[in-house]
């Protein structure tokens, strides 16, 4: 599957993508924190929803629902995963 890379902040709500890496702009301590949260290459991220004033955004990755501000989401480079973008979020369908 060949996908284009983009920043996590550009993804619309409902989209899923795979983490490729972190931007070089990330300050070391911020980058370290994002890694600590599980944003390492290969991690699947789903955009759950944005706050009413567009920021922050709720994401799902590494089995966790996590809010990030755009300032941090901008630093995460992802590759769109076509299959995940089409499929609905798994948990929603489970009664």
């Amino acid at each position, binding site marked *: 599957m060949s996908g284009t890379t983009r920043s996590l902040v550009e993804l619309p709500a409902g989209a899923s993508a795979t983490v490729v890496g972190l931007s070089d702009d990330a300050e070391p301590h911020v980058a370290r924190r994002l890694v600590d949260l599980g944003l390492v290459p290969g991690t699947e991220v789903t955009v759950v929803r944005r706050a009413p004033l567009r920021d922050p955004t709720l994401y799902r990755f*590494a089995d966790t629902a996590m809010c990030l501000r755009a300032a941090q989401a901008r630093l995460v480079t992802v590759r769109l995963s076509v299959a995940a973008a089409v499929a609905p*979020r798994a948990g929603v369908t489970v*009664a």
Partner: protein
Amino acid sequence: MSAHCDPGGAQAGSTATAERPMVALVGAPNAGKSTIFNALTGLRVKTGNYPGVTVGRSQGSCTLPDGTAVDVEDLPGTYSLEPISIDERIVVDLLHGRLDGVGEPGAVVVVADATTLRTSLRLLAGVLALGRPTALVLSMHDELVARGGRLDLDRLARAVGIPVVIADGRKRSGAAELRDLLPGWATWTAPVVAPPTDPEGCTSWIGSVLTTAGYSSAQESALTARIDRVLLHPVAGVAVFFAVMFGFFQTIFALAAPAQDAIGTGIERLATAVTGTFGDSAPVRLVSDGLLGGVGGVLVFVPQIALLFVLIAALEQVGYLSRAAFLMDRVMALAGLEGRAFVALLSSFACAIPGIMATRTMPSARERLATMLSVPLVTCSARLPVYTLLISMLIPADARWAGMSARGATMFGLYLLGAVSMMLAARVATLVGGARHTLMPFTMEMPPYRLPALRSVVVAVWLPVKGFLHKMGTVIVASTIVLWALLNLPVQSAAELRSHGVDPGDGSAVAAYTMEHSVAAGIGRAASPVFDPLGFDWRTNVAVISSLAARETFVATMGQITAASDPSDPSQALEDTTFDRGPHAGEPVFTSATLAALLVFFVYALQCMATIATLRRETGGWRWPLTVFGAYFALAWAMAFLAHTAVGAFA
């Protein structure tokens, strides 16, 4: 102390410097660490701050099945041992045993949420690298299973190389397995080789551990997803948010009022009983007015604090506080704060004291300090009687601005001024603090909705109430007595009173005369050079000084000084008040300019000993309370001077 619990015999070179061995609880925020801490320690808990910082500290003790006791330290939540905030620095320093004034931990217990184990294993890898006896406690294991996930405990224990137990802090017996495990901490198994801590190595270690343990992730909670679709909805979610916050505000503002009135009435009856029994002399009044007044001044806050913490604990455990913070984060960002500061801001509309105490839920010490220092500017309920009195004197009841009641609009304007000033002050505080600390990225976990645990709610309410009574009670009682003495000493003899034409039998005349010749009056006159530019006379100065006990005291003191027939409604007596000396003698004191200056002064001045005492406790010293008292006094004076000049020019 049993032999295997003796720190001297511990493996891996760990030693406890304290008399009792210390067990440190480490875990990510929301891992269920505090509920396990509560299940271990019950109410045998001390809360406070780590030495010299505003990072909250919880310590408790726990008696183990073998009869020995251990100290348990509930460390601030952290995702890793690479600290980027003061709070996380505390965790790392304590685990390394290099935190001044705190012992070295004998054993470390890592608490991990079984449903988010993947994230917690990274923290575990960091802890294992320290080489101390370590155990892993899994919370929410029942939830993992209920949501279709699974995990083999024995295989997980083999994969990580340390003891692994399940605990459910929501049940009384929830920590039983951990309690049984703890006495043997010196002989806990340790991994042969510590896991790698570099990001790539750690990621592959986590993958292999999860595979070995047969871990499969829990499905996203269907119920949570359904509820979130409403509660985080741009329209419905915001409507629910305002409804919840309205109910929250109403509860701490209105529901606490009857209890506070009952306390006030009870104290008054007690005071009357005391003077009735022992006669009305100065030493008796020191007890009946000074001491009992002080005790009443402490107790009156308890209903609000207790209710606030019931609500915060319930909302937090249900999971709604994170949702509220998510909705409000963008707004709070304007003040340089994050969404979680919102609860403190809201509570402060009732009273700054519970507001300051509510900042304990904030994970970042820097933003917590900025919030604590700025919330005293929010219009608290004690300002309300002062505003009501001054506005009624400033603006006629039938005045209309654009069809609205001018009095109501002014009141609204004062609330708005307080809120905007708070946001600006927080902005300044975060900028000043930001120069010294690195900027924290904002990350907040959104836990699934869960039923609150009654035990944890009880603990969450009891600890702040106990802390308030214990630590702040003494300061508030002492300051109330001192203020009473300043306002009522020296005692005027009957002969002295008669020689000045005052009937010693006329209570309000005696009170007015005594106050006019009190130490406080002397201070009020001495303070004239400071307050003259604002248009205050010495009596106003005395009332401003007396309002340090509680802002609403301003109204009663003005009534007493002006010998109003009804001291609780002194507006008529005040309107007739004129300067009794000096260049303005004979002119009315309460001109529009002076009233506006007084109003603005009360918006900014930190005119509340109880708030200062709370700040001292929550920041761990006098430095911050005295700094903000001075800063807000200067700000209040400057803004009042502006108001006096501006209104004086138009009037």
